[in-house]
């Protein structure tokens, strides 16, 4: 994944986390994973005249997260109508909108994201950073170059299904921990891409050659016209991984293993998806997976059992210094050198000493 070193902006994080506390009308409002504590939003909902936000709360709150029940609507009002009206409130924040967007059906979310004028209003009201988060919450998915394109990026929920089906034996713990890519990614057009990219990387000269990136807040953005149908799957695999593996093996090897598991999926699809991303990283990781065993590598990558990977590596006659040399070579993208460490013969063991000959006692002379 294209990623920069995290820079944590606590001010921005606290804005995202502000969430409306459910009111009496909205006793079953779902709460987003980022909920912290109640907040001016409560007063916002109760104050007279703030009908727009109250209506948003009442129209969508009965639906708990994970249920498929459509939220009840006020007579004649669609979710889009209520959302639009909520945006007209000068005190509206992402924190207020978020749980209701999360609880909405995808069709309702799409009704928002397919309205360019409404999105512009949202951006003007929320500011750029919260607007970008809204795009991921809406699961924005801009498909292809024209409406006639038959192919597009893989959808996030489909990527989650592919990962959970094809790598079921490996991602049990990750799934239990709630890891997924849906709700954290948006496939966006050139304008939103420029906004997201410039915010994260500025004018670094690499925009035109980037298909997708994970920003410092963990939001994933894919350019709708670039990459291939495996891009979403690759980013999704990252979301299921355990951070201990990355912090041990570092970026280049981690990308190789991510791509290894990505291609396990993309090569099995009908038709298969041809990928060339991180090719040398992948070529080495394939050999490494053969060397330590795929299941062992998976346990390291998805569950953080890096010790198990190292033990499997050493079990074939390698030593700690070989492990260190391998990590150093992969860190510097010296793939041929890393491969040679795998294929180098184990040092010959000295032959076992023969047991000392036991001579029979000499009989005393008569």
């Amino acid at each position, binding site marked *: *994944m*294209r990623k920069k070193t995290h820079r944590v902006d606590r001010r921005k994080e606290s804005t995202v986390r502000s969430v409306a506390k459910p009111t009496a009308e909205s006793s079953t409002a779902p709460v987003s994973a980022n909920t912290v504590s109640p907040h001016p939003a409560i007063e916002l909902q109760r104050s007279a005249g703030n009908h727009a936000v109250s209506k948003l709360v009442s129209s969508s709150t009965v639906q708990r997260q994970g249920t498929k029940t459509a939220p009840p609507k006020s007579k004649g009002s669609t979710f889009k109508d209520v959302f639009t009206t909520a945006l007209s409130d000068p005190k509206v924040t992402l924190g207020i909108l978020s749980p209701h967007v999360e609880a909405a059906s995808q069709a309702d979310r799409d009704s928002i994201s397919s309205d360019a004028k409404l999105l512009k209003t949202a951006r003007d009201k929320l500011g750029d950073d919260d607007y970008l988060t809204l795009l991921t919450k809406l699961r924005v998915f801009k498909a*292809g*170059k*024209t409406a*006639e*394109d*038959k*192919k*597009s990026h893989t959808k996030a929920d489909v990527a989650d299904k592919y990962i959970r089906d094809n790598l079921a034996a490996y991602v049990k713990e990750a799934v239990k921990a709630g890891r997924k890519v849906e709700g954290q990614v948006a496939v966006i057009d050139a304008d939103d891409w420029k906004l997201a990219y410039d915010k994260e990387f500025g004018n670094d000269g*690499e925009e*035109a*050659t*980037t*298909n*997708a*990136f994970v920003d410092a807040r963990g939001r994933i953005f894919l350019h709708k*016209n*670039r*990459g*291939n*149908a495996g*891009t979403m799957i*690759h*980013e999704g695999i990252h979301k299921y991984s355990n951070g201990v593996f990355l912090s041990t093996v570092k970026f280049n090897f981690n990308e190789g293993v991510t791509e290894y598991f990505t291609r396990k999926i993309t090569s099995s699809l009908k*038709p*298969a*998806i*041809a*990928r*060339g*991303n*991180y*090719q*040398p*990283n992948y*070529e080495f990781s394939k050999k490494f997976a053969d060397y330590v065993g795929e299941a062992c590598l998976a346990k390291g990558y998805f569950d953080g059992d890096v010790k198990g990977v190292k033990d499997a590596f050493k079990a074939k006659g390698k030593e700690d210094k070989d492990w260190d040399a391998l990590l150093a070579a992969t860190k510097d993208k010296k*793939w*041929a050198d890393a491969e040679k460490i795998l294929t180098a013969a184990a040092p010959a063991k000295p032959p076992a000493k023969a047991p000392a000959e036991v001579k029979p006692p000499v009989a005393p002379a008569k």
Partner: protein
Amino acid sequence: MESSPAQEELQRCRKLLDASRTGVALDETVPEWIPDSLRAVDGIGFVDPEYAITISVYVFEEWGGGDEAGLRLQEELQSDSNVYVVSAGNGRLLFIGQTRLDRDEGIDAKYRLADLVSAFSGQE
């Protein structure tokens, strides 16, 4: 004069494979297969003379339009086990590259081609 969408895509391809990114100065040439024969709208070829790597990049009408052609060509070329072949899609572009392994610099050529297809595929 405004460039066509296909020309814009080929320009994107040139940026992806630019020597400043890859460290490899490629010579431009014609693609190995006629674009029409793959149902592509345009194409371009590249050669790395140092390692005898040949690359063809095609532009298709649609996003992902080269997927089937890429898989077909890869299957065809990989029938020779002494040839390292890679194909990859990036939007409307398809990359197909090959180099021979049965020579002293075969492994180095393989990793160089791997670097090139990786650069073409874009950062993710």
